[in-house]
């Protein structure tokens, strides 16, 4: 749906150029900087900024799941926090009552999100555009209301006392640098897998759904299945990210499923650059930091971010990376052409 914009970011490979070079370059810069940030923060003995950065990466995972739907398939999800919160609650329950194992909690959360994604997808996938957005929103509202009222899940107070997750070899989620690096690695893996996925036939099908669903059906691929598959995948990524939250903060609350989380994720994606996959990660990191910093200066931080978002939608709908990538691509192409001559 942001087809015209996206065409400028990642032109079809029919022209023979390598459109992903610029994006890969930007991604490399991002991950290396994140790594450097972590090491420097650890070296100066900081804990707060490391944990804030970990939180930014966790929300980055949620942003990736939104981008998968919005940027790649053309579906705007206004309730993705549902899966994020679900993953968080499942993870918290596993850690508290079953076993404080990182892998177990993550695994069960991903499984639960896949199931929820299947159920939610069956309901939502039939629609597009604003219908999909509203159904996604409505699902999140309904489930978050149920959780808000369930005493066994802590009701409106949420669950506290979630123990640190044991990863293995002495590493737990309470170790700031260790957990930061672990989350960074996980996000990197998810990003890499998604990037590779976009180059497979399945990835092409997603682009086809975004472009013209009917034509896809004519060539024998059922768009409904494709959409359901990507919805479930997005749900799993969101759930996995959510699972990491209680490991970091030691608690969960219904606010994790509220519209503000879904809305913030969409804002992160748009500002970062829809459809670029690395853009949402960048947007999430920048805006999480920005919200924290601006929030300490003034009570009016919501409106500041809101204005920024509106400005981006009107003046730079391709977002940060979306605007940066073509420029960078042109420079890389020129350099490549020079080498070939």
């Amino acid at each position: 749906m942001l087809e015209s914009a996206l065409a400028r970011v990642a032109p079809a490979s029919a022209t023979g150029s390598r459109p992903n070079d610029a994006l890969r370059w930007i991604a490399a810069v991002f991950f290396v900087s994140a790594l450097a940030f972590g090491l420097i923060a650890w070296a100066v003995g900081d804990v707060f900024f490391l944990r804030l950065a970990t939180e930014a990466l966790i929300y980055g995972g949620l942003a990736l799941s939104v981008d998968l739907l919005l940027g790649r398939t053309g579906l705007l999800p206004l309730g993705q926090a549902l899966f994020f919160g679900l993953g968080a609650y499942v993870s918290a329950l596993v850690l508290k009552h079953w076993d404080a194992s990182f892998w177990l909690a993550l695994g069960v959360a991903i499984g639960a999100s896949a199931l929820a994604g299947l159920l939610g997808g069956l309901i939502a996938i039939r629609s597009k555009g604003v219908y999909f957005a509203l159904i996604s929103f409505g699902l999140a509202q309904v489930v978050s209301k149920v959780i808000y009222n369930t005493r066994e899940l802590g009701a409106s107070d949420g669950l506290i006392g979630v123990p640190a997750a044991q990863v293995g070899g002495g590493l737990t989620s309470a170790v700031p640098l260790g957990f930061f690096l672990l989350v960074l690695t996980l996000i990197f893996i998810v990003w890499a897998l998604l990037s590779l996925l976009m180059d497979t036939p399945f990835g092409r099908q997603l682009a086809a759904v975004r472009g013209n669903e009917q034509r896809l059906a004519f060539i024998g691929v059922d768009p409904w299945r494709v959409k359901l598959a990507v919805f479930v995948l997005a749900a799993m990524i969101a759930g996995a990210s959510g699972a990491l939250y209680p490991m970091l903060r030691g608690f969960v609350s219904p606010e994790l499923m509220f519209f503000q989380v879904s809305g913030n994720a969409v804002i992160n994606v748009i500002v970062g650059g829809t459809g670029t996959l690395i853009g949402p990660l960048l947007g999430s990191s920048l805006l999480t930091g920005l919200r924290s910093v601006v929030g300490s200066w003034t009570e009016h931080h919501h409106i500041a971010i809101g204005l920024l978002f509106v400005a981006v939608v009107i003046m730079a709908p391709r977002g940060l990376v979306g605007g940066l990538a073509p420029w960078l691509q042109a420079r890389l192409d020129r350099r490549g052409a020079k080498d070939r001559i």
Partner: protein
Amino acid sequence: MDWLQFVLAPQVINGLSIGVAVVLMALGLTIIFGLLDVINMAHGEFYALGAFVAVALIGMGLSFWLALLVTPVLLALVGYLSERTLVQRVFHSKDRHTLTLLLTFGLGVVMEDALKIVFGANPLRLEAPIQGATEMLGLFFPHYRLFVMLFGGAVIAAVWLLVFRTPLGAMVRAAAFDRHMTASLGVPVHKVYAATFAFGVALAALAGVLLAPMYSVFPTMGRDFVFIAFSVVIIGGMGSIKGAVLAGLVLTQVQSISSLWISPVWSDPLLFGIMVLVLVWRPQGLFGRLGHA
């Protein structure tokens, strides 16, 4: 018989006064979508803004009736300006649906926060202009609610007449149907679009002023209310005025009456469930036009 009189009848009547307000909101939404192809996610905030402006005007000394007339006009101006300066910018991209959705979503966030900053987070009060109630057949009829029902009903009828029975309405419908042809017939299409958006916003503001004495006035009042308005529009069919009116009245009745049997917490999920079912059975809504996604 007792049950009918003391339990069912009040539910029906209350459903009507809420229903009229919901229809006013839904009308604005469906007109903006049907005639402009724009999904206005800030509609709830325009509703809230209407209520706040009315409170401010009354605070400055205007009577409620004057505020009732002036507020929609003021908000129409705000709507016109928003359309010309903001919505027009993203209007001409290939898929305006997603971009206008995002733009109006962002606009809603900004407006809600602006309201909080200007008016504070605490609820405000608007005194009902007509006090008192009549007791008839054991039922209570607060006079103000009766007024809302009648006035709202009159407005809905007027809108219908305007859109379907006047040359102005014909012009607007033509512009929605075929922009280029209408433009080549000499109709200033840009202005028509902006005016239509303004009109839809004015309806939301009117709903805001009418409901303010019944429900309180606070910055987030639009957010929940717009969800039911959207559901009504979707079920009735986006772009269909008949659909908005029928769906609005029927669904509020369903919610009102069903709360007798099921816990009221489930009345919003019930509405959501109905919306999903309708979309599955008839994706364009009950009276919607095909081709509008």
